């Protein structure tokens, strides 16, 4: 019961991006780390898809696979397909792949300071995109850099174009990253924890900027995060990842109203809310598994309050919950019946 099989758009390659049964593993001297174990999803234009998961769930690795920036070795994409408007990116050679990276699919990272080169000015680094990909001259590139800095609302762009990353605050650095990512008008922007390192007032500014830019350009946005509140604020659809698999996917409204997977339900009942006082937190017991030793059967079973014998041996497929919604739980109906498991209207 795959997400993709009954999707007419997928068959015709109409999705902007179509991830099919992606497997990524890292072969280390200590053993094989199974970071991504068969995930499938699609992204359309103007759509925001949130990939929600904790550290070690494989959410960032799946994004790096799409960008084609996994170090190999140790990382290997062992199975699957990544179709960008129907073209399988995994079948391309490196020079063809390069024409997609940055131009069609761009990415911004969590830590903007380490992602920027400290010895080049910000304007030089933004302009580099034009010099390398478009053959622009230095002065043209600088002019473009100023335009882009204006577009991401960096004040006094003209004066600041020659400054270095350390002269910018955290929020401004992230804007520089966004400017670089958007410089070649990509169709897809992957944002990997773009606001995790930022203060909440700056986080609000950056999320607002991203959604404005998305409105202007019509790009598809993949937002990778562990923050349930950010997802609720901006995403159209959400895919929840656990131990390298998608355990639940659906529209953000459906999922937040009533979770169909015990892990999602556990996450929702374990976060404190700013608009509620004194609600008892019900944390998920235990800790996420090591990706070197993923439990057999359903990977969530050691922590799951719904677990039965079948869960220990039988890996649940993604069951169809509704037309737009899937859950990888044998007992998703039971989870749905537990109405305590939602966040919407629980106040």
């Amino acid at each position, binding site marked *: 019961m795959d997400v993709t099989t009954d999707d007419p758009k997928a068959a015709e390659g109409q999705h902007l991006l179509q991830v099919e049964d992606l497997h990524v593993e890292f072969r280390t001297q200590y053993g094989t780390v199974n970071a991504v174990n068969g995930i499938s999803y699609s992204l359309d234009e103007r759509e925001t898809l949130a990939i929600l998961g904790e*550290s070690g769930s494989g959410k960032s690795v799946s994004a790096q696979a799409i960008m084609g920036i996994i170090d190999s070795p140790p990382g290997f994409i062992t199975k699957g397909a990544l179709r960008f408007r129907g073209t399988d990116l995994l079948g391309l050679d490196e020079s063809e792949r390069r024409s997609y990276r940055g131009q069609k699919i761009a990415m911004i990272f969590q830590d903007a300071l380490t992602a920027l080169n400290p010895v080049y000015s910000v304007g030089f680094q933004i302009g580099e995109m034009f010099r390398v990909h478009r053959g622009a001259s230095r002065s043209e590139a600088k002019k473009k850099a100023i335009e882009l800095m204006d577009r991401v609302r960096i004040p006094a762009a003209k004066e600041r174009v020659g400054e270095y990353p350390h002269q910018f605050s955290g929020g401004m650095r992230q804007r520089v990253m966004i400017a670089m990512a958007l410089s070649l008008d990509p169709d897809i922007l992957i944002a990997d924890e773009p606001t995790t390192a930022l203060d*909440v007032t700056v986080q609000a*500014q950056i999320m607002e900027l991203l959604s404005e830019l998305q409105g202007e350009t019509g790009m598809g946005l993949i937002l990778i995060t562990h923050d349930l509140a950010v997802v609720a604020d901006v995403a159209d659809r959400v895919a929840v990842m656990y131990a390298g698999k998608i355990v639940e996917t659906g529209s953000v409204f459906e999922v937040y109203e009533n979770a169909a997977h015990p892990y999602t339900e556990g*996450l929702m009942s*374990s976060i404190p809310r700013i608009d*509620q006082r004194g609600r008892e937190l019900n*944390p998920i017991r235990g800790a996420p598994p090591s990706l070197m030793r993923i439990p057999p059967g359903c990977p969530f079973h050691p922590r799951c309050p719904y677990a039965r014998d079948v869960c220990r041996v039988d890996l649940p497929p993604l069951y169809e919950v509704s037309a737009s919604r899937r859950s990888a739980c044998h007992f998703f109906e039971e989870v749905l019946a537990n109405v305590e498991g939602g966040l919407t209207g629980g106040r």
Partner: protein
Amino acid sequence: MADEGNGRPAPERDVILKVENLVKHFPLTQGIVFKKHVGAVKAVEGVSFDLYRGETLGLVGESGCGKSTVAKLLLRLEEATSGSAIYDGKDIFKLPKKELRTLRRNIQIVFQDPYASLNPRMTVGDIVAEPWEIHQGRMGKAERRSRVQDLLARVGLDPDHVNRYPHQFSGGQRQRIGIARALALNPDIIICDEPVSALDVSVQAQVVNLLNALQSDFNLSYIFIAHDLAVVRHISDRVAVMYLGKIMEVGNQDQIYDRPTHPYTQALLSAVPVPDPAVRGERKRMVLTGDVPSPANPPSGCVFRTRCWKAQEKCAEEVPALENRGFDHPSACHFAEIERVVPV
């Protein structure tokens, strides 16, 4: 937690720590041999608060607001520039070196990063027992091992793991080890400096629940420093909001979250996303423009005025005191008024 509606817990509860006019300036110097003072980073600029026995005081603010410096000052890990902090009838900042040890026995700290705050070469048993090694005479050598095991069990770890090393534990478990170490000397006050912000969402709640349970078991007072306003609301009895080294507003959690009067508190709260797509677009957003000014050169008058939509001439001239302004809790704004920004 009896709320009297005046920002204070019930009157029978005594003040355990009274902080007044705490100031910390870090000197900025130039030159290598002859260090010339060229200014100061005003990290903490006149902070006053009371901590009651058995309560949790949340200290919130963005990075650089001085909240962690306050923690370091109270433990005398940094020396305060001026001000006083009265604990047990004595001023912490005037204690002679000998008595510092007693102080640190009674005020303990849990750090943010459970990976950096535990010595990787020590076993968990040694880490938790180390406070007794330093504070001789608190626990006989013979009883230590069983007491360590009790503590580990109390914080939800397997007592048989005393001989393991920190790397064998997950982040959440390491934070529990740090908490066990803080509990070893039966302190009165534990300062929690961002204790859950490095943890995964599903593990955060476990640690928050543990801190809550320990508080009622041991009658602990917490100073809970965090930037996550949702966690602070969950755990705190009272909350102090800091900006550029000053407290902007203080009150019990309903006063701060439901009836904030300071524009900074309102902006901060309105920026926090609510994990509920149903309220999307219905919320009032007060997105602050610009960045926090440098604490080396803070604005005159009200430090928040450069980013405040209410700012007028008076704000540049006169420093607003943290005082009662006709509402049920003090606020450091000349134009304080209640505005609800968190949805009901």
